[in-house]
């Protein structure tokens, strides 16, 4: 595309009052742009002006106005055009300082005008470097959905996906469909007044799926491996329990490969096809729904409850089986224990959520329905009955023979033909001593991913989901913001493998997962990112001739988008990519970039900042700001009229993971006095939208500190700060503190070179 530029400076929203507009247009002129000004560029008159210029051939609009986070539609001039935003409102006009003893109005005006001019320069530079993105399109795209697991979640996902017209293959290890739900005698109520237990619906669900012509059911089958990428997954099936050469290979890292090559270690993938190999007999799928479910948790670790050595102590799943098999005869009293902590803590059994509370209520009802004189005791620390299930709880409570109390169960001892349960801290005001025929423990639902790969990917980063330990075995990517997502694009989990949940929630969950799978395929078809940068048409482009096979990008990609060949040259899978740019930040050769976001572009923007080399007061500090949380946080700070330090120049980045360390060097060599990265919180409770970006950036900054000290620069000149989106009242203080440290260090010795 031949670019025709139009540069615009909006003077509305207080910009015209806070900044010297002539100074801004002069800055544009320096870079060869005649800037047009308008008092309300986003209004109808402003838009008319832009449209008129578009008709005159302008296709690259450089809009110096408000934050890029707002007015996106107003300044979207169409698919074949580019719009670049310079933020002179939130980052100059609105965050202007108030006069004080230290700074007069005149000085503040001067500093703020310099800020505004720098943002205009940066925007124009960006406009010059940016290219129109061409979406990445697959040659052939599969629109079939693979559903793994034939329980309630898998059956529902298959049914719902098929209803929307998509072809589905449902794989189940067992010989029959139904999963754990086959064992339930009755189900929780689903209809008002939520009082009566309902007959199982699993039979009807199975029949519906089996009768659906769009669904292919494969029982006694499992997935050997899934290779490829969304829109083009290559899936190999095998009979359950068998071994084949197409089984998913274990991850072999750089160090392991080294040892294998030296003969110090056995190759774990001996006899298996390489992960990049494609099975010609495999089937193609567009997206995968993982609904492989859960297993009942082992409760023998809680010794005081006697599960291991007392046959009168069973789990809720075992009790359900007793009911199903009609083995309640002679059982007149049962204690349902919900929390194993005794006097130490009040936590429920692990992996329970609200499910076990409701199961205990249901099972108490079984007992009462079987025997009118039976007594069911429910000893809980928490009764969790969310939503309409509160009505269920109320209904069960009405039963004369169901007795509930909060209690710390201190022990279960065998006595006579049954057990004696002892409990403290009860609502009855006294310690309890209950003689019962049977004790039922509320064992939780552990995701199968806690024990096995389950998904069996043939990816360079290994067959399993990553960081499972961080989430107790659940395959989360970002629980708070993106609950359906896994760390593998195009793979969506639902049901018990994702969270301990009851059946009605599972049905909602599976329906949601089916829709996510469809969304993934349709986005892939249009060549845009599915999540979280939905609709982004860019993707990372590799200039392979200069690749040194260092493997940093393949190792660091948080989503396993990059495979590699024998030599270690990356094999990109753009449809797996989430466009965070972590690979771009990792690459020491700077050969990875996006059409609208690359090393050269940001580097040039940094160099566009005017650094006075003879004024000790006018230091310049670069701030690279994550656009997911830190950027909105700064915008909100400006909206609240918090002043931002006028020595700092902010540049938004897709993720701190995309920050290439060459930008820091660019800033330092341009004579800037410091650089700060503002990104999401990282660690176990990370808030990074791309999971690892801010953590990786912090590591890289540690490494660059060595380089700086070799150059004779203080390592304190570069720093990373973690900003949450809610830090808008403190963020300017955090920045001021860093700036003060730089002021204390004095101007950079590189200034003027």
């Amino acid at each position, binding site marked *: 595309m031949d670019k025709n530029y139009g540069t615009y400076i909006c003077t509305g929203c207080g910009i015209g009052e806070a900044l010297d507009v002539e100074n801004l247009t002069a800055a544009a002129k320096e870079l060869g742009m005649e800037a047009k000004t308008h008092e309300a560029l986003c209004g109808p008159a402003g838009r008319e002006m832009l449209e008129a210029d578009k008709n005159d051939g302008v296709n690259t609009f450089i809009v110096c106005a408000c934050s890029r986070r707002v007015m996106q539609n107003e300044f979207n001039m169409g698919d074949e055009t580019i719009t670049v935003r310079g933020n002179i409102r939130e980052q100059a006009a609105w965050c202007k300082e108030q006069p004080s003893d230290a700074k007069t109005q005149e000085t503040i005006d001067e500093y703020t005008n310099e800020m505004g001019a720098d943002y205009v320069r940066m925007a124009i530079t960006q406009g010059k470097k940016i290219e129109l993105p061409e979406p990445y399109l697959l040659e052939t795209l599969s629109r079939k959905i693979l559903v793994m697991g034939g329980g309630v979640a898998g059956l529902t996902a298959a049914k719902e996906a098929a209803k929307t017209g998509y072809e589905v293959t449902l794989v189940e290890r067992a010989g029959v469909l139904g999963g754990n739900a086959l064992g339930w005698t009755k189900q929780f109520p689903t209809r008002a007044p939520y009082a009566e237990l309902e007959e199982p619906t699993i039979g009807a669900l199975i029949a519906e799926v089996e009768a659906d012509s769009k669904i292919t059911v494969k029982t006694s089958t499992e997935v050997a491996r899934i290779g490829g990428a969304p829109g083009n997954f290559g899936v190999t099936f095998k009979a359950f329990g068998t071994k084949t050469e197409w089984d998913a290979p274990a991850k072999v890292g750089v160090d392991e490969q080294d040892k294998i090559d030296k003969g110090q270690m056995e190759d774990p993938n001996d006899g298996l096809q390489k992960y990049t190999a494609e099975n010609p007999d495999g089937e193609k799928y567009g997206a995968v729904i993982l609904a492989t479910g859960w297993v009942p948790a082992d409760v023998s670790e809680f010794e005081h409850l006697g599960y291991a050595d007392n046959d009168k102590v069973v789990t809720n799943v075992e009790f359900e089986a007793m009911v199903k098999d009609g083995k309640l005869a002679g059982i007149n009293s049962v204690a349902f224990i919900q929390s194993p902590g005794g006097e130490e803590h009040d936590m429920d059994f692990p992996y329970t959520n609200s499910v076990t509370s409701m199961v205990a209520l249901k099972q108490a009802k079984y007992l009462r329905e079987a025997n009118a004189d039976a007594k069911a005791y429910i000893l809980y620390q928490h009764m969790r009955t969310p939503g309409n299930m509160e009505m269920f709880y109320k209904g069960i*409570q009405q039963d*004369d*023979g169901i*007795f509930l109390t909060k209690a710390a169960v201190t022990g279960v001892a065998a006595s006579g033909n049954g057990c004696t349960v002892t409990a403290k801290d009860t*609502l*009855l*005001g006294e310690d309890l*001593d209950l*003689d019962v025929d049977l004790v039922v423990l509320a064992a939780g639902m552990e995701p199968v991913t806690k024990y096995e790969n389950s998904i069996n990917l043939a990816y360079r980063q290994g067959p399993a989901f990553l960081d499972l330990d961080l989430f107790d075995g659940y395959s989360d990517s970002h629980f708070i913001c993106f609950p359906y997502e896994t760390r593998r694009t195009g793979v969506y989990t639902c049901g018990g493998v994702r969270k301990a949940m009851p059946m009605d929630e599972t049905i909602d969950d599976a329906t949601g997962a089916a829709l996510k799978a469809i969304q993934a395929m349709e986005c892939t078809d249009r060549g845009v990112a599915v999540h979280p940068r939905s609709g982004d048409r860019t993707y990372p482009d590799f200039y392979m001739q200069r690749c040194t096979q260092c493997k940093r990008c393949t190792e660091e990609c948080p989503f396993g988008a990059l495979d590699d060949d024998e030599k270690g040259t990356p094999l990109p899978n753009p449809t797996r990519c989430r466009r965070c740019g972590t690979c771009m930040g990792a690459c020491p050769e700077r050969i990875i970039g996006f059409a609208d976001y690359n090393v050269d572009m940001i580097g040039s923007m940094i160099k566009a900042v005017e650094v006075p080399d003879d004024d000790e007061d006018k230091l310049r500090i670069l701030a690279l700001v994550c656009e997911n949380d830190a950027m909105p946080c700064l915008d909100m700070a400006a909206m609240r009229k918090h002043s931002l330090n006028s020595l700092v120049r902010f540049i938004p980045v897709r993720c701190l993971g995309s920050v290439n360390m060459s930008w820091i060097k660019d800033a330092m060599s341009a004579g800037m006095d410091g650089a700060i990265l503002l990104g999401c919180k990282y660690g176990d409770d990370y808030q990074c939208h791309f999971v690892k970006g801010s953590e990786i950036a912090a590591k890289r900054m540690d490494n660059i500190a060595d380089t700086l000290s070799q150059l004779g620069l203080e390592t304190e000149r570069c720093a990373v700060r973690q900003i949450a989106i809610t830090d808008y009242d403190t963020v300017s203080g955090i920045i001021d503190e860093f700036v003060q440290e730089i002021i204390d260090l004095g101007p950079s010795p590189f200034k003027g070179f």
Partner: protein
Amino acid sequence: MKVNPDLDFIRYMKSAGGDTLKKCYQCATCSVVCPLSTDDKPFPRKEMIWAQWGLKDKLLADPDIFLCHQCGDCSAYCPRGAKPGDVLGAIRAYAYTHYGFPSGLAKMVSSSKNLPLTIGLPALIVLVMWFISGGMRIPTAEAMSQYGFGHFFGHWDWRWLAKNVAFIDLIMVPAFGLAVYAAYRGVSTMWKAMMTQYNVSTVYRPSVNQFIEQFLWPSIKEIIVHTRFNKCGVNVNRVIGHLPLMLAFIALLFVTAYSAFVQDVLGIFYPSLHGPMSMMNPVKMLANVAAIAMIFGVGVLWSNRSAAEAEEGTSATYYDWFLIYEIMAVAVTGLGAELGRLVGVPVLAYFLYYLHLVSVLMLFLYMPYTKFAHLVYRTFAMAFEKYRESEFVGK
């Protein structure tokens, strides 16, 4: 504590007005809003879970079930629609039956199924006594205006004790004696149970005088001035009914005692004092005012209860209505007999007087087993409340 819930007890409470007891989820809003509950010894939250768990013995030895005046604040504020006030009422009803002696009589009175027998028994006793006395005939209007009901059971010329008085005493004194004994027995069993339950050990025993002076009399004073009733929030208007009713009973107690003294003691020496009192006699005026106050008081309670049943879903119980009907019967038959006498219709007057005797006998005889029993059990529960905090008790 070994716990074994009593399912029959739960079923009983549910049938006796406590049908909502299982709705409680132990938030303790009731104990907070209850105007009578104290910070140190709150209720009725704990009574609710004891009731849910069918812990009969704990409830029967709990003074708080009697300290409750069923104001209804707890029921009004309960977020779950459990009605602690009604549940405690059901528990009290059970307690009166439980502590009642002889238990056969207590059980008979507690159930609506036995209503024919409950009314028939006293009716038969009075009828038989009337027959035995030989006075069973309708007097002339003239005779009635001269003797009033003084010759109801006939007449003899033994000056020391009138035949009528002798027969009334024969009926009422044993009944009253049984009631007093049953109440004493019930209260002392309850007292022992409370002592055990709350682990109260007496350091040195108060004398009867000390007991009355320090525990019983302060409790009675509180009852007479309705201290606790007046604290009620939601249903404070019940005081409008209960206070006149209670004062009427006290007044009639005085009137009866005065009348007995004047007619049956002074009358021995001054025969002119026999026969109906003049309507202008201040004591007679008090009696008439008391009768009207009684009808008014019980009428207010009647309409309050009807309204509560219609508007708040309070369940109608035999236990509550029996006492209302019974007191209304005593008042209406008494006043009716008097009017019958004054207008000179002997048949009506005698018939109503017969019914009046039956209803008064029922009131006395059944006092320890019906809701009327609250006048002893609640008084002693209040005394216990004071006693367990006193110097006589080891802390």
